[in-house]
């Protein structure tokens, strides 16, 4: 590998972007084949054409292999994990769509959707609370099921080995984050009809909680 690495220092670095397993199996051969192509080309024009071809061919195939190798993990992932991850993701979607719509409205019209039907109960409760909560419970239950079913290794190993469980861990964490933001958000705590002012209002939220205004606010939302 040394000679080829020395001959093609940049190219061999680019081949390093392939997934490790693929690189180990085919990295040297890719370099060798390229060397053969260049050695058998006669003119500098044909050499340039070869490099042009490599420049187009290599990134496409690196991307293809990276996708395939990440897909290998998904191949062994239980189907209930895949299904619940998709459902949880879909349940979280309205939250982000509503925020994006509000952001766009602000950017384009210098206006907000706070007075629209999206920000009124029961629609507000649905995308801000019920859907993220359902997503969290669903993804969490799926993750727990995975931990219980795969008892071959210790609990700690199973928790740390996220190779198969990441599709449900990610939506669960996002859903929990949304619920956390909402729970500590000033608007929910004190109910001023603007529940997505993010955690920049933490101090105010804390004050509301200290003043014991959080429970009535949640009751309003529910």
């Amino acid at each position, binding site marked *: 590998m040394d000679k080829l690495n020395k001959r093609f220092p940049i190219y061999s670095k680019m081949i390093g972007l392939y997934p490790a397993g693929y690189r180990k199996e*085919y990295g040297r*051969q890719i370099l060798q084949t*390229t060397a*053969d*192509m260049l050695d058998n080309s006669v003119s500098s024009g044909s050499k340039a054409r070869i490099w042009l*071809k490599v420049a187009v061919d*290599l990134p*496409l195939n690196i991307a293809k292999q990276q996708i395939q190798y990440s897909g290998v993990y998904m191949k062994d992932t239980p189907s209930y994990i895949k299904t619940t991850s998709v459902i949880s993701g879909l349940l979280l979607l309205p939250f982000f769509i509503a925020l994006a719509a509000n952001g766009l409205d602000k950017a384009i019209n210098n206006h907000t959707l706070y007075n629209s039907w999206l920000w009124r109960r029961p629609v507000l409760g649905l995308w801000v609370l019920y859907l993220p909560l359902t997503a969290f419970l669903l993804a969490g239950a799926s993750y727990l099921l995975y931990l219980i079913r795969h008892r071959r290794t210790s609990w700690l190993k199973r928790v740390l080995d996220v190779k198969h469980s990441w599709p449900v861990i990610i939506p669960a964490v996002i859903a929990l984050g949304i619920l956390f933001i909402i729970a500590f958000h000033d608007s929910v705590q004190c109910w001023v009809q603007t529940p997505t002012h993010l955690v920049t209002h933490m101090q105010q939220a804390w004050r509301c909680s200290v003043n014991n205004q959080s429970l009535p606010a949640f009751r309003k939302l529910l």
Partner: protein
Amino acid sequence: MKRTMNLLPQVSFSILMALSLKPRHGYEIMQQVQDDSLGKIKLGPGSLYTAIKQLKEDDYIEEVPDSDIRRRYYRLSKKGWDRLNGELEYFDKTMKIARQRKVFEAFLGSDLTWIS
């Protein structure tokens, strides 16, 4: 038994065809594929080994043991021969049907106005 057969991608088929003559290493496969396709298929090294990897995973080709240290040689496996035969049989039948229907003559003699 599987009743339907998904045809191989053109590059994979061409590689199997190239290896039907003798075991070859990467660059030789590339050249043979280019020759067989009359220059229409020009593989880059990345595409070549992506296809080789897939063919190896499907057990259609295998590495020749103790081949050159610098260049690995590949050959068709038993399954690969069967697959190549299956593909060629399909093409052969398709050609027969095309001849029966005189597709080529119709195509060459037509002014193709019906296409548009």
